[in-house]
């Protein structure tokens, strides 16, 4: 028998999340000398286009072959790649991750899931980073297809792997309900 329990509501991380959530090196998913290491960076901006200096981003992604080290992946877990990174923004709203480009997943273009936490956000915001050079894979991706074509570009990093996140207003990033 299962018991139905009421879910615990989310609350903002507030301005002082770094006391509990910041640790050195968590923005490096792989070491600098890792084969295929890439750097993805960008800025988090508010409704006025001003930097958000107190956001933190978490990323979750497959390895270069499109596999996860996780028992719930029906294809089986592939150990060796954590897939997780966390990076706070600086006074200019900047973040920077070092990771590898994820491989394609069955029926999905390569992508990185991103959760954004900040003062002013009641709950995290989820978005995805896609890659500009994956033109044909992106064209067949069901998640990109579900997004208003005029806003799709907000989910695609530039060729030099810049990915800005606009929380609200002009050019607002597409956020997902999970």
């Amino acid at each position, binding site marked *: 028998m*299962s*018991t*139905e*329990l*009421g*879910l*615990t*509501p*989310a*609350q*903002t*991380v507030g*301005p*002082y*999340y*770094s*006391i*509990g*959530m910041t640790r050195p090196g968590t923005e490096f998913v792989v070491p600098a000398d890792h084969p295929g290491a890439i750097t993805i960076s960008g800025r988090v901006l*508010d*409704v*006025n286009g*001003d930097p*958000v200096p107190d956001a933190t981003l*978490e990323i*979750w992604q*497959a390895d270069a072959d499109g596999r*996860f*080290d*996780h028992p*719930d*992946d029906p294809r089986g877990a592939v150990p060796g790649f*954590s*897939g*997780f990174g966390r990076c706070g923004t600086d006074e200019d709203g900047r973040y920077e991750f070092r990771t590898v480009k994820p491989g394609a*997943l*069955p029926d*999905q273009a390569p992508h990185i*899931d991103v959760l954004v*936490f900040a*003062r*002013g*956000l*009641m*709950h*995290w*915001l*989820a978005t995805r980073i896609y890659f500009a050079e994956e033109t044909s894979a992106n064209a067949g991706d*069901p*998640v990109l297809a*579900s*997004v208003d074509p005029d*806003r799709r570009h907000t989910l695609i990093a530039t060729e030099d792997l810049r990915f800005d996140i606009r*929380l*609200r207003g002009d050019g*607002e990033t597409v*956020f*997902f*309900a*999970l």
Partner: protein
Amino acid sequence: MGYQRDTGLVHAPHYSPEYRSSMLRAPSQPLVVLPHRLTEITGPLFGESDVRPEESDLTTQHDGEPLGERIVVHGSVRDGSGRPVPNTLLELWQANSAGRYQHQNDQHDAPLDPNFTGNGRCVTDAEGNYRFTTIRPGAYPWGNHHNAWRPAHLHFSVFGRALPQRLVTQMYFPGDPLLDYDPIYQAVREPKVRQRMISSFDLESTVPGWALAFNFDIVLAGPEASLLEEPHVD
């Protein structure tokens, strides 16, 4: 396979203008529903080897004892179907007993405590239970509106086993009169839902002569309803 979704009754609306910061930062466009595929039925996993046992005691991180009321905060992490969530990482951060955070941006005119940093971590055990020892935090003013004071709270971050379970919340204390005036707490619309964030005093777990105790159970999104309805054999 997928996880329960909030139908709008659990989490506060992102745009909650009584909480002023949300006016600058909450999205204006509706969220796009993302079906749970491989990247969402998985998520970062942690285990006992990721934390040291002493990280769950916030009162022993310095040479001296922190000031304030020593408390035990404990509870379970389960999913919406009642299943324990074992081996999941919890991160805790909070103000000191005077209501001051050990953070350069906190300008509240209350004393710092050299014996209190205010952060702890632990991993739930095989039954999904956790336990911290800490200090009861103070309330503090925050400038959101005239004479705004945050009710005393602990920040909790929990991972679960997949992204839809990821949760950052705040634990409050029973009987706090500031809860009625707090736009962050009140942003969760349903009174019976927001009350889930209020811990309960737990006399049985107090440590005689040493610490009071509060119970705070956390419930993360569980398997989708369709899965709950599937018959299964124990």
